[in-house]
């Protein structure tokens, strides 16, 4: 059988993190009561006109710059005409033949090596409302429409067909989210649908450069769904081709319940959107100064940060990736290191305990109640042998809850290790004297019993005994007896 090679391109809709909608002053909010964030403009009342939100343009430009796109001095809005109950004007204001930006690239270090996906274009458009169907199809059913999301600002990002598999596509989607969150373009909540993805998938014989018939798969709104849907779609197309069949040029939608893609409409049923220039909005002119000012505002991008962290701190790939994905996490990490902690130690604590506590408390790292400096001081106590690693985790939780210094907690709770040899010597002797049977077994060669004695001592000290000292004292005592 011919091995098939998938060719995948993505279209990602990203909700930009503005306070208000793209063409009116309504707040962008998903949590409010239905139709509470609406006005004549985003409801499409007769006579209402759009006015462009400059902040949304800035965020789209930042996104374009982060993706290495050329931002055009002039772009043009267009009307995309189609009827749908949640599309209030009967057309969507978008950009068509003259988008805001074109020709970028997203590069990252993937699991199997460096990855590179070209970005065809990035343009601005408005979101539609949300329809909700209740009851059965047909006259007995009802459809309710919420226009709170109508007019929310979106950047649509279209890639070239540079992805060769489901995992790579999911990886791209994740890297894209990370990048756009890093530049502040989107809040990036997958739950709230801030990033939504459609994929174009075709198969060709491996090594060929002839493109197969593309199928569009819609509504892939999480990294996992994207991967599962593409896996399924690739399998489906491969099965058709293996059987000598032809893949239909069509649009399919991913059904979460069944894990399959289902046909939505064929090419013949495709909409004729009748694009034409939006006469209600002048062309969008972006000055070179504006672009330069925004470029100057770009923070260090995640991929660059990952490379830098990996190189200058010798971090393992996984840790470097996890920390570099978020500017605040990276800043936290660097603060902990400059407070004197070894980079690997710092990375372990941040990707381990700190990440766990943040997740439990649903906080972001810049909201963490434990400062980088306090974390460094805590870990130094482990390194100095004052407390055990396990104890340190407990102290961290207390610091998290109370905001107290690690030294104060260790002192007040008597958590410091017992390193006093006289004190520990007495406890060790007591453990040996109280267990003559075990002593006999030890002498008989069962050295595993040593662990039993360590346990006894630890139990007696509440886990605070310094293990190194205990080991030394125990060995001496058992030889002696």
């Amino acid at each position, binding site marked *: 059988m011919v091995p098939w090679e998938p060719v995948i391109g993505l279209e990602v809709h990203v909700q930009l993190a503005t306070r208000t909608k793209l063409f009116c002053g309504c707040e962008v909010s998903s949590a409010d009561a239905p139709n509470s964030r609406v006005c004549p403009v985003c409801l499409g*009342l*007769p006579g209402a006109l759009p006015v462009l939100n400059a902040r949304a343009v800035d965020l789209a430009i930042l996104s374009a710059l982060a993706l290495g796109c050329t931002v055009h001095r002039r772009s043009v809005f267009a009307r995309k*005409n189609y*009827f749908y109950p949640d599309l209030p004007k009967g057309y969507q204001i978008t950009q068509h033949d003259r988008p805001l930006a074109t020709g970028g690239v997203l590069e990252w270090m993937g699991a199997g090596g460096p990855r590179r996906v070209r970005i065809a274009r990035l343009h601005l458009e408005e979101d539609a409302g949300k329809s909700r169907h209740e009851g059965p199809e047909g006259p007995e059913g009802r459809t309710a429409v919420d226009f709170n999301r109508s007019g929310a600002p979106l950047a649509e990002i279209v890639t070239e067909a540079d992805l060769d598999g489901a995992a790579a596509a999911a990886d791209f989607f994740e890297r894209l989210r990370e990048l756009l969150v890093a530049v502040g373009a989107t809040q990036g909540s997958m739950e709230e649908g801030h990033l939504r993805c459609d994929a174009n998938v075709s198969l060709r014989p491996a090594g060929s450069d002839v493109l197969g018939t593309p199928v569009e798969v819609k509504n892939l709104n999480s990294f996992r769904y994207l991967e599962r849907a593409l896996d399924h779609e690739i399998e489906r197309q491969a099965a058709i081709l293996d059987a000598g069949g032809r893949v239909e040029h069509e649009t399919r939608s991913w059904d979460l319940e069944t894990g399959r893609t289902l046909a939505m409409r064929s090419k013949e049923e495709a909409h004729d959107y*009748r694009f034409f220039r939006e006469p209600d909005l*002048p062309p969008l002119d972006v000055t070179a100064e504006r672009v330069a000012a925004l470029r100057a505002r770009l923070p260090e991008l995640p991929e660059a940060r990952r490379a830098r962290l990996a190189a200058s701190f010798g971090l393992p790939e996984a840790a470097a990736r996890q920390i570099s994905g978020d500017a605040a996490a990276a800043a936290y990490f660097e603060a902990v290191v400059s407070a004197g902690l070894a980079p690997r130690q710092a990375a372990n604590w941040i990707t381990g305990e700190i990440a766990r506590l943040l997740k439990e408390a649903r906080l972001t790292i810049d909201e963490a109640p434990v400062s980088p400096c306090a974390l460094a001081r805590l870990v130094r106590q482990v390194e100095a042998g004052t407390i055990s690693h396990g104890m340190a985790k407990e102290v961290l939780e207390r610091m998290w809850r109370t905001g107290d210094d690690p030294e104060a907690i260790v002192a007040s709770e008597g958590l410091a290790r017992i390193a006093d040899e006289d004190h520990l010597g007495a406890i060790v002797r007591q453990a040996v004297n109280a267990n003559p049977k075990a002593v006999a077994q030890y002498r008989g060669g069962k050295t595993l019993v040593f662990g039993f004695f360590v346990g006894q001592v630890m139990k007696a000290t509440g886990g605070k005994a310094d293990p190194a000292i205990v080991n030394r004292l125990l060995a001496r005592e058992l030889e002696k007896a």
Partner: protein
Amino acid sequence: MPPESGRPLTALAIRNAVRAGRLTAAQACRAALDAIDVHEPRIHAYISICADRAMEAAHRLDADPARVARLPLAGVPVAIKDNLCTAGLRTTAGSRMLEAFVPPYDATAVRRLEEAGAIIVGKTNCDEFAMGASTEYSAFGPTRNPVDPSRTPGGSSGGSAATVASGALPIALGSDTGGSVRQPASFCGVVGLKPTYGRVSRYGLIAFASSLDQVGVLAGTAEDAALALQAIAGADAADATAAGRPVPDYAAALEHPVAGLRVGVPRALVADEVDEEVRDRFDRACEALRAFGLDVRDVSLPHARHAVPVYHLVASAEASANLARYDGVRYGLRAPHDGSVIGMNAATRDAGFGRELKRRIMLGTYALSAGYYEAYYARGQRVRALIRADFEAAFREVDFVALPTAPTPAFRLGERLDNPVQMYLADLFTAGPSLAGLPAISIPCGETREGLPVGLQLVGRMFDEAGLLRVAHAFETGAAGRNDGA
């Protein structure tokens, strides 16, 4: 307030009297409402009359003389074309689709008129969504021409032109997409001003063709048109296409001399398909301009004869999108339907829109469709650019272009209903300036033997409303002066 001379009071006269305390806003408003009552059975200029609301507004004004003293339109009763949104006041656009639609907001032009002290007494009749040239395509019955009720007042702002021509009130707002203010002004014998595209905010003007629509003024005199334009013109944060450039003092501009200004006449165009009497009155008007010291000469507008088809292509394409929002979902009519979304859309649009609207929606949808876009819409836009370039070239030689406003005087009701192409020819001289975005004014320049008014259209450079008003004022007062002397 019976006008002593038999001629209705101008807005300027009403404002001055109200400011001086010789007349109350309530009296001015009552007089207008009474006059409307008299004329309405004969001409049907209104879709809604809001007597109570108007009288309340008038009384509020009268209660605040300090404020009244500052208002440029203090106590002036006005009418608003029913495609301009008025908060709390039904706005139908002449369509069954919006028969019960009450907007929650005011159009910017409406708000500015009211802020200037004007009092809205009613909403005037118009062709459905402003598509028409006779006001016969209104879903609420046709308006008749007060000069001769067997004839149409023109359109689509026929109600506004008719009520001003009847003398009931001095100023009404209209909208002009391809001639909808100027042509009815010409038919009814009043002044009709279409400002430069972008001079007046379109916010709240129910869209027909967004790249052409402009709020305009119908008035008894150029001076009153200047007063109204002064109130409504200027930048608006709610309309991205409204121009930011400063608004000049139009009243002051009226006083400047006109001698030496150059007027171009595209002779070749005027020879085509123009009623003989209209051409004669137009020629005489050009003579009069020359007599006032203007330099009248020939110019050429080689592409102007394509204006009507190009206009209909562009306007219908935009209209097909602008009218898509009337889907029965959120407001307006929702017709009985089969329970499906498409069924609801289709039934609502079938019941809510008239024949002419459906014709234009289909034409526009076709012109934008895949495979036809290049042949129709894109080509139309290219010819539009040529028409604009013609005017630009003409304005290097002259300050204004003069044309008849319409090729004929007012036609009879029903005469063109079955012949849309004949109806579209009413836009022969007005569509070109609209496509070019230029300001233009129609002023009365005589009557036919049957007593039907004929309009002279002057087209100006971008944003030269002041120049148009100045020549119109000179023409008006000069003509009046000669009549008085005769």
